[in-house]
């Protein structure tokens, strides 16, 4: 077997995915019309799988801020924060994030993926341990590998399972990072954060919360699950690529040690810093998130409308209403076929096939935006209603 032979299985899957028409992993958006509409395959399509929770990608203040930064600071930094790529706007964004969370220290990264890898790899290493929720995002598993720490998995959202495992680690528990997410990206369920935080504290471990899907979505001020459940985490990580509509990631913390991560985090040190225009649109979007709580209210109204509408069709959904609405399909083949029919009907959503879904099932995953109109939500529900029933 040579180096390239292992790709034959991937090629077979790609052929299978493409057989029904459009390959779900290779959809080309020809033109973006708005935060919720695009042209795909010559057809005007409602985008209901974008993670664009607050719909800020076409916000006028964000676009103007990005254009100004492009004109004033150029297209890119061409270097790391450790070298020539450390701009005043990076430090300003860090200061604004720290202030927003009420934590003294903040650090930004070039992507959300790098934020998880960079924080984890700086924080834990050989001899330390990571206790990871079983349904955690791939980037958190990758961060575990990069760190060199021993990685253990506990049952999803199960404080008792975490307690038992921390107990088994004995003295090593105090050198353990417990990692959970605020809102889980596939099923849209929240972590029982208060209980998990209590267990973590009992064992002297450290709590890391990934708020990628909950920033701007949960909490009175949009700070995420830590705000909603009044928990102080040791490290809060998030991304700019969802509610804030740009790219990049961050970590905030009450621990001064975060300021030293800059010298220990390879995903921070050995990559170019975020572009000035990206930093500018992120800062403008964060200001919008703070100033316009009505965006969050509209998001939740839309999320509840979609969840209830799909529920009334008798579809099997994720455990609770949220801006991530997962529809369980009976088989991989049916999921693929139904995804195709929805796209042909002018609705784009995400197809989740095993092993990406937590219980190995196949899902049609919708994500809702504050920018969706009532008519668009109705159209999404109607498109699901038109799908053939199993056995038809």
């Amino acid at each position, binding site marked *: 077997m040579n180096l390239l032979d292992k790709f034959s299985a991937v090629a077979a899957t790609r052929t299978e995915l493409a057989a029904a028409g459009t390959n779900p992993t290779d959809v080309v958006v020809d033109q973006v019309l708005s935060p919720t509409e695009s042209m795909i395959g010559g057809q005007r399509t409602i985008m209901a799988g974008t993670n664009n929770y607050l719909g800020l990608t076409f916000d006028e203040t964000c676009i103007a801020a990005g254009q100004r930064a492009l004109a004033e600071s150029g297209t890119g930094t061409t270097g790391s924060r450790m070298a020539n790529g450390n701009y005043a706007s990076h430090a300003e964004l860090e200061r604004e994030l720290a202030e927003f969370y009420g934590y003294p220290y903040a650090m930004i990264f070039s992507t959300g993926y790098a934020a998880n890898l960079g924080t984890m790899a700086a924080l834990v290493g050989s001899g330390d341990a990571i206790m990871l929720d079983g349904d955690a995002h791939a980037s958190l598993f990758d961060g575990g590998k990069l760190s060199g720490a021993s990685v*253990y*998995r506990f049952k999803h959202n199960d404080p008792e399972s975490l307690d038992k495992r921390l107990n088994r680690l004995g003295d090593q528990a105090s050198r353990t990072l417990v990692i959970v997410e605020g809102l889980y990206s596939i099923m849209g369920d929240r972590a029982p954060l208060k209980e998990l935080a209590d267990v973590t504290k009992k064992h002297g471990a450290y709590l890391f919360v990934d708020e990628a899907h909950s920033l701007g979505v949960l909490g009175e001020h949009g700070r995420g699950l830590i705000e909603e459940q009044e928990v102080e985490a040791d490290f809060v990580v998030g991304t700019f690529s969802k509610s804030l509509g740009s790219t990049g990631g961050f970590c905030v913390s009450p621990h001064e040690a975060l300021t030293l991560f800059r010298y220990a985090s390879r995903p921070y040190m050995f990559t170019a810093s975020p572009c000035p225009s990206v930093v500018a649109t992120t800062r403008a979007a964060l200001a919008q998130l703070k100033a316009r709580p009505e965006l969050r209210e509209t998001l939740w109204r839309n999320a509840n409308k979609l969840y209830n509408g799909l529920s009334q069709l008798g579809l099997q959904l994720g455990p609770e209403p949220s801006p991530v609405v997962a529809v369980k399909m009976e088989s991989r083949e049916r999921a693929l076929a139904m995804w195709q029919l929805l796209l042909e009907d002018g609705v784009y959503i995400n197809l989740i096939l095993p092993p990406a879904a937590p219980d190995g099932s196949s899902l049609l995953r919708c994500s809702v935006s504050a920018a969706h109109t009532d008519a668009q939500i109705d159209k999404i529900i109607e498109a699901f209603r038109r799908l053939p029933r199993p056995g038809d």
Partner: protein
Amino acid sequence: MVTLREVSLSDNNTIIAELVGLLAAQLPEPREVPPETDLISDLALESVQIMEFMVDVEDHYDIAISLEALAEIRTLEQLAQVVSQARDKQ
């Protein structure tokens, strides 16, 4: 006289029998699972099922098995050795 090696083998056989019992929850129908069975290629278990099985194994023996140790395990026999070593550490 029973040698140390024989005790160890007997211990391993007991663990393998218990593992087969725990594995049954992940199999669509009852089947013979010899110790050298490859959990992935022979049983066609999805990674999700392997993870659930491992959580059951950890809870049954009250041990912790790291993901990097898990990555080296292909057969029930190898898993039994890891379980045995983890129990010895405690």
